[in-house]
C-alpha cells in the first residue's frame, strides 16, 4: 500500500491562525508558525497554509509567516489563497513555500495551470477544488472560499486540471468543512478513482473513524485535518494571544469544540498503522 500523508491545514487571516465552519465564521486560534512547528515536531508529513482573505487584503503578513515557518520546519509547505499569476507563485516560493495551491485563478483562466506547471514543474502546482453538492446529486466547483459558484462539474474539472499538468488535487467538501460530520467520501472516491495524480481529502473530520474511512473507502492519498488538531493545542498557547485582533471570544471562553475529538498526530498515526494504513511514524 502506498504511504498515506497526514497534513495539518492552517487557515490564516492576517497574522493569525483561524478556523471556520463551511469556510466562514472564523475564530482566532493563534500564531500559525507556532502551530506549524508544533505539528512538524509531532510527525506531520506536510503543512498547508491557506490565506483565507488573500484576495481582499495585502499579503505582507503572509510572506512573513511563510518566511519564518520555512526556517523552522523541514517538511513540505504548501501555500494557497490569492495566487493569481506567475509573479504570485514566484513570491510565495521565494518566501519559502515548496508548493502553491490554486483555485480561483485556475477556474478563471485554465491556461494558467499549463503555464504554471510547465514553468515550475507539476509537482509544485496543487489545484484546490472546493466542491458543493447540488440538488441534482452532482458536485460543482466554487471559488473565493466557497462564495462564488462556477457551474463547473467537479470530476470534469479534476480531469481537466490533470491533463493541464497539475501535480496534485486538494479536495474540499464545503458541505462538510468545519462541521465534524466526516469527509464527503462519495466526492473523494469519485475524484480519486478517476485521476492518476494524488488526491488530498479535506473537510469534515472530527474523529479517527472519519480518517480511516476516507483512506479505505475514499481512496485518498493524504488527509488534511484542521479542527481535530488545532482545538487540542489551542488552549495551551492561548495566553500569548491576548493582543490578537479579531474574534478571540472563542479562545477566551476556554471551551473545547465539543464536536471534535482532539488528537495528536503521533497517536493518530499509531492508530492508522494499527489498522494497516502505511504511514511514516
Amino acid at each position, binding site marked *: 500500500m*502506498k*504511504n*498515506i*500523508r497526514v497534513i495539518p491545514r492552517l487557515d490564516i487571516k492576517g497574522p493569525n491562525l483561524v478556523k471556520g465552519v463551511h469556510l466562514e465564521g472564523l475564530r482566532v486560534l493563534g500564531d500559525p508558525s507556532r502551530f506549524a512547528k508544533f505539528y*512538524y515536531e509531532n510527525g506531520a*508529513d506536510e503543512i498547508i497554509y491557506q490565506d483565507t482573505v488573500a484576495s481582499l487584503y495585502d499579503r505582507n503578513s503572509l510572506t512573513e509567516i511563510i518566511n519564518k515557518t*520555512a*526556517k523552522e520546519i*523541514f*517538511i*513540505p509547505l504548501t501555500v494557497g489563497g490569492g495566487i493569481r499569476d506567475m509573479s504570485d507563485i514566484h513570491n510565495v*516560493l*521565494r*518566501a*519559502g*513555500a*515548496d508548493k502553491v495551491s490554486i483555485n480561483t485563478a485556475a477556474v478563471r483562466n485554465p491556461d494558467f495551470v499549463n503555464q504554471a506547471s*510547465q*514553468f*515550475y*514543474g*507539476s*509537482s*509544485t502546482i496543487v489545484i484546490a477544488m472546493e466542491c458543493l453538492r447540488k440538488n441534482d446529486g452532482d458536485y460543482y466547483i466554487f471559488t473565493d472560499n466557497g462564495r462564488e459558484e462556477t457551474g463547473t462539474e467537479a470530476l470534469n474539472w479534476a480531469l481537466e486540471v490533470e491533463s493541464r499538468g497539475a*501535480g*496534485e488535487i486538494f479536495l474540499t467538501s464545503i458541505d462538510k468543512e468545519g462541521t465534524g460530520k466526516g469527509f464527503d467520501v462519495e466526492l473523494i472516491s469519485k475524484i*480519486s*478513482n*478517476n*485521476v*492518476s*495524480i*494524488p*488526491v488530498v481529502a479535506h473537510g469534515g473530520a472530527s474523529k479517527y473513524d472519519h480518517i480511516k474511512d476516507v483512506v479505505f473507502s475514499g*481512496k485518498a*492519498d*493524504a488527509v488534511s485535518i484542521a479542527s481535530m488538531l488545532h482545538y487540542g493545542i489551542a488552549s495551551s498557547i492561548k495566553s500569548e494571544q491576548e493582543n490578537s485582533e479579531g474574534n478571540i471570544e472563542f479562545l477566551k471562553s476556554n471551551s473545547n469544540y465539543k464536536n471534535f475529538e482532539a488528537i495528536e498526530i503521533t497517536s493518530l498515526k499509531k492508530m492508522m498503522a494499527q489498522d494497516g494504513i502505511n504511514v*511514516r511514524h
Partner: protein
Amino acid sequence: MRVSIIDYKTSNLHSVKAACEQVGITSRITSKPNELLSSDAAILPGVGSFSGAMQNIRKLGLEEAILNFVSSGKSLFGICLGLQLLFEKSEEFGTHEGLSLLRGKVKKFDFSNENKHKYPVPQIGWNKIISKNQNWQDTYLDNCDEGTHMYFIHSFYVEPEDEAVILSTSVYGNQRYCSSIKKENIFATQFHPEKSGHKGLEIYRSFKNYLSINV
C-alpha cells in the same frame, strides 16, 4: 568551508539553504561558474523539468563548471532533479542529454497496467530507503537506519548502467528504483533530505561532518 547551492533559476532553493543553516553549513546560492569553482563543496538541487534545467545550466555556463568542479575531486551533492541531471539522458518529452557524469538514463514511472489510482504519478510522499550494493558507513547516509522514511516528489527515476553506484533503492508500486547513488565524490538522492524532517537533516549533518574532515 564554503558550500555553493547551484542556482539555475528554476526552483526554490530556500529550503536547501535553510537546511544548511540548521546544521551549521555556510552556504551561498550562486549561478556564477567562478563562484562555484572557488567553493569547497556544492549542492545541485532541482525541481521542474529536465530539459528546462539543462537549457538553463548551459545558458549560464554552468555545465562546464560543474564538470570541472567534479573532476577537481570536490564533493557534489545532488537532490531530486539534481540526481537525474547527472545521468546521460532523460525520456521526459523526447530525449534530452544530461551532464553525463554517470552512465544511465532517466525514466518515467509507468503503472498503466494497474488500477488508475493505485499508485499515483507523481509519487508525492514518504517512502523507505533500503540499502543496496554499498555500505552506508562513510557515506552521508551513515546516520540513517535501514528503512528510514524520506520525502519524495517525482515522476521520473534514474536507471544507472553501473549498479555498483546505487546506494539505496525504494519501491513504488511494482517498481524498485534507485533512490540514492554514490560514486567517488558524487552523492545524490532522489528524495529531498531538506523536506524529510529530522532524519533528512541528519544527511546534511553528515555532509557537513564529512566536509570538515576533508577540507
